[in-house]
């Protein structure tokens, strides 16, 4: 890595010598490429400062915040967090702000990368259907939060109105193999976590800072299952991590990795070898790590109940060859790997009826602890989770006649939760694989 730094520096000196104008902007105005999370636009590399046009529209839209749960989000560009903006120090940004015609509310934007009144808030304050433009110069490199600053500010932010703008230094950030955009936010709904249907914003819970959801990228599961991030052994990963708040400070951590470098608070100073980095509400950090072994890395807010009970969890699947000199697990690894996420699924999906110790409620919800029904037939158990189970059954000698709905989980989660249940509470230790589940799903 060090060699690359030196090479880059040499290149830069060479470039500077060829363009004596230095910081002068010579290019025509250019429309900036914006991306939806978790992707980021291409690096600035060695380019000089530019006149960049950023077009960003505020869109109010109902989206899923969890499976079966929707929320009326207010967004920058149609996603939570909003579109990622990538610039270089010295750029002149012509910021074209639009509030969609079908918005109900006025909005604006305060970019922390702006030197000037309100970060652009006053200049962009727009009624529904109106557009506003202002211009600023990026003076300080770093990773910055932007957010809406219209009253009541807390409510606009709580509804998802935040995102990140990166100002790269001269010469750009050092090249890496993968870059991703991850932003945390806390949400306050009338219904508790997971309660289905359209959930309105709860002002009372927001003021009490009593979050129902703490999420990466605006949705339970935005970074898990099919949406998991990926990397290959030997690659260096850079995460642009933001925290929109409105209330909570994030203890950002990746289970199974150590951050080789953290650009603390998104600024210029770098901390090496960090386990957990604090990301304040309205703040950011750039974290980098090289992945050395394959497996599943778990992104969490290490204020850990938020991860396991409120949704602050993401997955990075690392592919490639194992290196047993770095990490070697006992042969039960396959089971262990499924037990851990299985508990998450259990707590979210099963616990309300079947109990924290699998005890159920006699006569209403059958036990999954020491369950003759489960231990007798793995496929029957898989079917119950996949398709639901209605009508009379007998479990441990007690008759039940109730309806359990189909759970809408993917194969990996079904395998994980059943393996978890079988591994606990005097059950028989049956291992359920995603392949087992896929086979039953085809039946």
């Amino acid at each position: 890595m060090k060699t690359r730094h030196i090479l880059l520096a040499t290149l830069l000196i060479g470039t500077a010598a060829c363009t004596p104008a230095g910081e002068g902007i010579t290019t025509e105005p250019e429309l900036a490429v914006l991306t939806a999370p978790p992707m980021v636009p291409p690096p600035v590399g060695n380019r000089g400062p530019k006149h960049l046009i950023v077009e960003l529209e505020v869109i109010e839209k109902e989206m899923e915040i969890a499976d079966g749960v929707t929320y009326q989000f207010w967004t920058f560009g149609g996603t939570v967090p909003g579109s990622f903006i990538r610039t270089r120090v010295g750029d002149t940004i012509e910021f074209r702000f639009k509030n969609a015609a079908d918005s109900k509310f006025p909005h604006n934007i305060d970019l922390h990368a702006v030197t000037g009144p309100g970060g652009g808030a006053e200049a962009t304050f727009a009624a529904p259907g109106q557009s506003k433009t202002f211009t600023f110069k990026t003076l300080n490199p770093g990773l910055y939060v932007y957010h809406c600053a219209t009253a009541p500010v807390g409510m606009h932010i709580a509804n998802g109105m935040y995102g990140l703008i990166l100002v790269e230094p001269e010469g750009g950030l050092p090249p890496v193999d993968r870059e991703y955009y991850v932003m945390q936010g806390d949400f306050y709904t009338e219904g508790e976590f997971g309660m289905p249907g359209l959930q309105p914003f709860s002002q009372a819970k927001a003021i009490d800072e009593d979050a129902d959801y703490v999420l990466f990228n605006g949705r339970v599961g935005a970074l898990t299952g099919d949406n998991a991030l990926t990397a290959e052994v030997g690659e260096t990963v850079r995460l642009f991590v933001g925290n929109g708040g409105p209330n909570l400070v994030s203890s950002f951590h990746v289970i199974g990795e150590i951050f080789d470098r953290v650009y603390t608070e998104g600024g210029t100073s770098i901390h090496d070898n960090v386990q957990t980095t604090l990301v304040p509400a309205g703040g950011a950090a750039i974290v980098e790590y090289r992945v050395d072994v394959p497996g599943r890395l778990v992104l969490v807010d290490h204020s850990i109940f938020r991860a396991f009970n409120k949704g602050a969890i993401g997955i990075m699947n690392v592919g490639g060859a194992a290196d047993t000199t770095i990490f070697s697990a006992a042969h039960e690894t396959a089971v262990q790997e499924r037990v851990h996420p299985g508990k998450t699924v259990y707590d979210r999906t099963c616990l309300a009826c079947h109990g924290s110790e699998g005890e159920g409620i006699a006569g209403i919800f059958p036990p999954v602890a020491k369950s003759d029904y489960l231990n007798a037939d793995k496929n029957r158990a898989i079917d119950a989770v996949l398709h639901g189970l209605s009508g009379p059954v007998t479990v441990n000698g007690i008759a039940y006649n109730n309806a359990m709905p189909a759970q809408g989980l993917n194969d990996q989660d079904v395998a994980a939760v059943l393996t978890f249940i079988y591994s606990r509470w005097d059950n028989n230790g049956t291992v359920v694989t995603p392949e087992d589940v896929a086979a039953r799903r085809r039946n």
Partner: protein
Amino acid sequence: MSALILFLLLQLDPYPVTIRQFQAFLRDHSEWRRSEVKRIWADERYLLDWTDDLTPPAGANPAAPVTQVSWFAAQAYCEIQGKTLPTVAEWETAAKADETRRDATGDPAFTARILTAYGRPATHRNAVGGGFRTVDGLYDLHGLVWEWTLDFNSVAPIEADGRFCGAGAGGSDPSDYARFLRDALRGSLKPNHSVTSVGFRCAKRPAS
């Protein structure tokens, strides 16, 4: 006279002005048709969704509130009927009421109910009269459309004071998010703006 007595003497229309009512107004007053209105009185979004000068948007309920009308057009409509737009103070006094209480704003459940109503999208397409009826016999003050007020621009815009930085507006209740939302909307408007979520109702003041 006290503000309350003045308010009680005011006759606020029970419903916002509907598309059907505004269509009749346009028939009689060609200067307010989309193709003829002067840009200083109404911006380019004025009645933008209407099919033509006299035909409401395709599929629109004629009993839905008219929106995409500027403040100038709204006030002209009211004046022609011998009425006026209500002031912010008058409108806000009316809007404190629920079915049984003239002032329900101290009740957190009332604010929560309004915020939930505000959160529903595209409510301007609904017919008037679907909202709750206040003790004063008024409908749809919350959750159907925002409403123009005579002195909407007396609400301090963002740059004039600190209220839009999220602190409590001077003197008013910092927990009244519904009022914050209305004032933010008012502060974002100019009188020629024509907004899809903004309609109006008229008021008749007693002859003085």
